[in-house]
């Protein structure tokens, strides 16, 4: 039996999240400061992408550092389609999701035979190859120059002058990813994922089709990540291969759930709401004359988290509630 205080923490989690969602809906009506809104958008953006990564990385323990591949594929499919045919980004988004899912399915099967660092290295290699190819086929992709998305404002073009519409879109998306994660966490599928993370051979011997389960999780994760790519492209109105397919981005997607708590549906949200403001503030304070300094701090934080807080913030909170509950 878990102590009562632990149950209290569990139910209060849901209430806190609902309240936060409601507050964020009202927020842009009250606050119009562009930096504050931008910060919120980025917090939600990384929360959703961290949560998307978490489905395959956290629940299934398949620790990819190549998620930028799906992100970039989504963005490039959508923007190139719009560039050449003028089709609305909303359709491009669906196509981008499709392309990323197919790519995930194609590389997933061979990748999942690899374990530990081998898997991680393979995912890095795939993202690198995509980046190099996008740079090389510059007649089609515009290469390293990138593509500026023409400014045509309006909901139909997924482009807005104000920040508030972007905030609403990413808020709904984050809520959606969270809901999917939550449903996975509570489902048979989720238990299969966790089982194969803990011991793949044991899960297999108990009748879990580990290959298919991992593939499903990878496709869901990739599809959600590619939407993030489309959103970011439409938000900054520019794409180029170095940032879209970068290892740094993949690291960030994995870092968010790691800080919050890997393999939980709330973890990525907590992670992003702590990490993103910290990063954005450090960057704006130290970014200018002290180039590099903020990333030194970032690197040090990374090491400290791994060494002292491997279970993330959620792990700390949980151990606090359970241990103090057991004492009473």
């Amino acid at each position, binding site marked *: 039996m878990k102590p009562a205080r632990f149950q209290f923490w569990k139910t209060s989690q849901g209430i806190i999240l609902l309240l936060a969602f409601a507050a964020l809906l009202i927020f842009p009506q009250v606050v119009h400061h562009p930096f504050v809104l931008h910060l919120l958008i980025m917090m939600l953006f990384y929360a959703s992408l961290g949560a998307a990564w978490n489905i395959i990385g956290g629940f299934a323990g398949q620790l990819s550092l190549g998620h930028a591949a799906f992100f970039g594929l989504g963005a490039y499919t959508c923007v190139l389609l719009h560039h050449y045919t003028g089709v609305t980004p909303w359709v491009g988004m669906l196509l981008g999701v499709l392309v990323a899912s197919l790519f995930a399915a194609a590389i997933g099967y061979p990748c999942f*035979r690899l374990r530990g660092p081998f898997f*991680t*290295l*393979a995912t890095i290699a795939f993202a690198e190859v995509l980046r190099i190819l996008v740079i*090389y086929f510059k007649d089609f992709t515009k290469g390293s120059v990138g593509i500026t998305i023409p400014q045509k404002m309006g909901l139909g073009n997924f482009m807005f002058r104000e920040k508030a519409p972007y905030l609403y879109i990413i808020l709904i998306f984050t809520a959606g990813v969270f809901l999917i994660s939550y449903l996975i966490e509570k489902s048979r599928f989720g238990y299969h994922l966790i089982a194969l993370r803990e011991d793949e051979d044991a899960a297999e011997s108990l009748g879990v089709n580990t290959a298919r389960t991992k593939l499903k999780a990878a496709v869901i994760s990739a599809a959600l990540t590619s939407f993030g790519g489309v959103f970011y492209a439409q938000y900054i109105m520019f794409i180029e291969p170095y940032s879209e397919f970068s290892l740094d981005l993949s690291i960030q997607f994995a*870092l968010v759930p790691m800080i919050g708590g890997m393999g939980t549906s709330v973890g990525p949200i907590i992670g992003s709401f702590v990490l993103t403001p910290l990063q954005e503030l450090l960057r704006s304070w130290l970014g200018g004359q002290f180039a590099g300094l903020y*990333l*030194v701090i970032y690197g040090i934080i990374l090491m400290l988290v791994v060494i002292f807080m491997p279970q993330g913030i959620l792990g700390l909170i949980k151990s606090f509630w359970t241990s103090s509950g057991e004492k009473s």
Partner: protein
Amino acid sequence: MIQDLMQLTINGLLQGGIYSLISIGLTLIFGVTRVVNFAHGEFLMLAMYATFFLFQMSGMDPYFSLLIVTPLLFVLGLVAERLVIHPILNAPSFMQIFSTVGLSVALQNAALFFWKADYRSVKTAYSTQTLVASDLLISVPRLIAFGAAVLISWGIFLYLKKTYTGKAIRAVAQNRTASTLMGINIRKIYFLTFGLGTALVGMAGVLLMPVYYVFPTVGGLFVLTAFVVVVLGGMGNLTGAFAGGLIIGLVESYSGFYLATQLKEAVYFIIFILVLFLKPSGLYGIVGSEEMGEK
């Protein structure tokens, strides 16, 4: 035609020698500690900066600075092991990767902070010297780097084969548990190995300096190549890393000429992916490499 091919082969082998030396350090660390060290490239970068500053401040010949930079990097490796690797030795491999990524980001940006993003190079009398042998051009500093890489690799093989400590290192690489039972202090071996691997990449940095330039992210350029080499040769296998380095050097040289310069990286990443899929234990598959993957 034939001459092109021979020239490309020479260039590829000479470049490959440097890759071998970088990769031997990486694979040694992996083989013994089972940690994939993403900060390996940053040690290369630090060694290159050290060489550069020694040259700039005291006019020291880059090759002479081997005597200073190598022990310096050895000590740096020991410090890094104590602070970053030691606490996470028993963590899951992913956590270890993150910790070394953190170290890599911190070092890279510390370099950016202190030394700016400028490209710096060492200009010596022999920087652009070449030997001409029946229409083939051989760059002198690259030849020296290659020769030194071969000698150093040979030295480290001998050390691991003949000395008592070397044997202990190999024992730990083969089987942690058994070597603990045999009375080897494995923590000490990890410590020493990390220093050794870092010293090796430090020597590579020094040898690279007369023909290359240094900037804060130079390590990232080489470390991904080194991963390709290490996987190709079989993780933890030194002979494999040496051969793998030469192979990747050749692949780079041929594909850069016959295909397109921009695609040479794609070619070796595709080789990397194919090796992972077809023979994850690498060219020189060693017993137990499957177990390494499982961690």
